[in-house]
């Protein structure tokens, strides 16, 4: 029946026009999503990191006024927050509240791999991926197994993470204080591992195959230097 075929044609034609003008799902576009209910979607409050035109610097998240201390941030524990003992010297022990156990080292390893390995690599030899790209670093990250650093007290690594050192900037804003100590403990572990000999490995563990998770953290090509 001609009427029906022309109807099908019209339908196909119309939908082709519709898709052509309106577009398909998932096409990348710079146009923002459509919000029909503006007042409910955007309420009279600010999300974290949202801009707020009321303030001169345009931020909704305010910085604490100068000379004030937020609750819980007095940081009067020198050992925990500054890695220094009562005599003002760098300590060589974890703060009393942090226990050295498997959990701490696992945490330290994980955090080290996130925050330090891009530059110092997983073993701490200072040849991380970020330093091999785009022309390389102006100052090469330090090899954490240098004799000078191997002799440093634990508090020194905490201090470097917290305050930075030379061209390495501070990581205090990115890493909470307990994690900084966990990383320091892991740096110590790495250093010990590089000075270990076969006799340090317990008898029954010597021929155990390397677990897959560890194999991935092995030295990059070229090995430790």
């Amino acid at each position, binding site marked *: 029946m001609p*009427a029906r075929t022309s*109807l099908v044609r019209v*339908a196909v034609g119309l939908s082709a026009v519709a898709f052509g003008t309106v577009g398909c799902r998932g096409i*990348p576009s710079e146009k*923002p999503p459509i919000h029909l209910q503006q007042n409910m979607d955007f309420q009279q409050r600010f*999300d974290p990191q949202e801009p707020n035109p009321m303030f001169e610097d345009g931020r909704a998240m305010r910085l604490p006024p100068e000379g004030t201390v937020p609750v819980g941030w007095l940081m009067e524990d020198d050992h925990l927050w500054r890695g220094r003992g009562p005599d003002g010297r760098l300590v060589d022990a974890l703060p009393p509240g942090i226990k050295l156990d498997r959990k701490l080292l696992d945490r330290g390893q994980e955090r080290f791999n996130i925050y330090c390995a*891009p530059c110092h690599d997983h073993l701490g030899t200072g040849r991380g991926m970020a330093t091999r790209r785009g022309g390389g670093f102006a100052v090469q990250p330090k090899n954490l197994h240098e004799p000078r650093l191997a002799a440093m007290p634990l508090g020194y690594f905490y201090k470097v993470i917290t305050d930075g050192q030379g061209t390495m900037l501070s990581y205090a804003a990115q890493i909470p204080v307990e994690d900084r100590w966990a990383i320091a403990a892991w740096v110590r572990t790495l250093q010990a591992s590089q000075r270990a000999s076969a006799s340090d490995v317990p008898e029954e563990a010597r021929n155990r195959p390397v677990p897959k998770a560890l194999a991935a953290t092995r030295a990059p090509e070229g090995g430790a230097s």
Partner: protein
Amino acid sequence: MPAIFPRWTNHIPVVAGLLAPLVGAGLIFAVWYWFSPKFTDVGYRPKQPVPYSHRLHVSDVGLDCRYCHNTVERAAHAAVPPAATCMNCHSQVKSTSPRLEKVRESYNTGAPIQWVRVHQLPDYVYFDHRPHVAAGVGCASCHGRVDLEDVVELKEPLSMSWCLDCHRNPEPNLRPLDQVTNMAWDPAEHDYDPNKDPMRKRKVQPPTHCSGCHR
């Protein structure tokens, strides 16, 4: 006497009878297809003030998501990093690149870089990254393969049904707790059973009641 209605009007009921369902179906289709967030939201890919590329930094340089979005495990909001985080590296590498001009300016003056927000739920929805990351839902499940994108694009509709589809049956979206930020981890390649994972202390129970997400 001539007929009042010409002959062709005899077809009107037939044509209308055939067209009406078609038009109706077309309307329903159009609403279903084009009024959905899968059309109105997915694919949003705004131009950012700095040509920052996740592909380069995550896939090539090998950064973990948490290096920059460091609050994702600790807070509801996954912070977009301040310029200081970029300067950890960019004070050393590409330190004179014109593409990083805005980053250096922000670092020196303290004025924030005005990143354009891509993922945004309506304000009446409560969303928190913490329980999701702690339950082992990968970033890739909700944000797509960000590590393969040069410009971040909205990949999921972020609609209520999208949340609920997962909340009603979360198990296929769970992965080992240490693989959350591993974008390449593919659930299809591993037959991971969350119920047998000794690292998990309890069964996950995502809320499906209204006050879970509308508090």
